């Protein structure tokens, strides 16, 4: 054991006074030195952490969180704008469609009314013309019929003249005979 401890001194220039082989962690002569250096090193570490490192990392994380939150807010704002634009477009479209339907309806009913009236007028005209024609036809018929006896009498007179030759019978006589035949 003493041999072992003799070799330990090779790492330290000055060498340490060995504590008769006591277990190193329980060697209380090293405690003041360990405590002092622990307090110094840990104190410096704590100071650097609380003053430099942790505020810095906290700042980085917060910046990132803010940035993300800001971007999200911007995105939702833009989305809302888009939604609004879509809604207004939809309503404009619906309005336009309604207007178009009304216009088409109006145009159709107007055209229909015009056509109706034009047709009515044409029909009226036609009816008038028809009755006029009928009247003239009936007039012509009547006229013609009134001439039938005359023509028949004349024709009969000629026939009789041709058949019996010479002298034509008296017109009144012929007419009387034709009338009697026609009756």
């Amino acid at each position, binding site marked *: 054991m003493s041999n072992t401890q003799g070799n330990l001194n090779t790492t330290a220039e000055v060498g340490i006074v060995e504590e008769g082989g006591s277990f190193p962690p329980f060697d209380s002569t090293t405690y003041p030195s360990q405590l002092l250096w622990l307090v110094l090193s840990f104190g410096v*570490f704590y100071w650097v952490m609380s003053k430099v490192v942790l505020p*810095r990392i906290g700042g980085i994380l917060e*910046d990132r969180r803010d940035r993300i939150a800001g971007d999200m807010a911007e995105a939702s704002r833009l989305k809302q704008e888009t939604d609004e634009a879509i809604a207004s477009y939809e309503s404009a479209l619906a309005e336009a469609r309604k207007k178009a339907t009304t216009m088409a309806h109006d145009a159709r009913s107007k055209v229909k009314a015009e056509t109706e009236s034009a047709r009515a007028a044409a029909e009226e005209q036609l009816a008038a013309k028809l009755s006029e024609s009928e009247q003239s036809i009936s007039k012509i018929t009547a006229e013609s019929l009134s001439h039938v006896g005359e023509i028949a009498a004349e024709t009969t007179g000629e026939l009789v003249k041709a058949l019996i030759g010479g002298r034509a019978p008296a017109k009144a006589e012929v007419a009387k005979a034709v009338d009697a035949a026609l009756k």
Partner: protein
Amino acid sequence: MAGNSGNAIDPIHQFHISKIFPVEIGGVDFSFTNASLFMVVTVAVATLFLVLSTNRRGLVPSRAQLMAEMSYEFVAATLRGSAGNDGMRFFPLVFSLFMFVFVANMLGMFPYFFTVTSQIIVTFALAILVIGTVTIYGFFKHGAGFLKLFVPSGVPAGVIPLVSAIEVISFLSRPVSLSVRLFANMLAGHITLKVFAGFVVMLTGFGAVGIASAILPLILTVAITALEFLVAFLQAYVFTVLTCMYLADALHPSH
């Protein structure tokens, strides 16, 4: 030479403290030792990493910055989880403790490096720092109301003295359990590692049979090394969690 090889497998040798610059004030030895050196190295490594990695303050973090941010958020979540938002006033302390213990444990995993946390005085000092903070802040904030910590509510009056006695004992044993847990884990782990590694060295001295039989301790050494890395992190975490829970007592003593 015999002494040297004996040294190589002496599992306690790694915990020896040797002076680098002797300092003596008023007859008390305050020398800068290998333990002091590794405290400084621990602080330097942790500080440099955290400062340099966050130097750029990137909105999109680099890998190193992400590690720094993750350690920050990890400790913050642990503290907030057990002590609530009020507990964030102790965040610098808890973060410093976690990083110090964690980096010290991890540096201790390097061969030939001294493990700062394998010294009971160091872990005890850190535990006293925690319990001291809890006690002083508890009395400062709640005055005598802090003593409600020892009188759990909803306990029948008859058993209050007994329960209070147990609570007081458990409170007083906190620094001991906190420090001994960390110290003993680091000490035992490093001794185990050294013993198994020592077997390998010893057995290889016995020729071919020895080398063949050295394979098993070699595998074990590798496995224990992995385990020790886990323990190094886990003990730092446990220390932090317990610190957070004790701080929660200081903030809300009536439970």
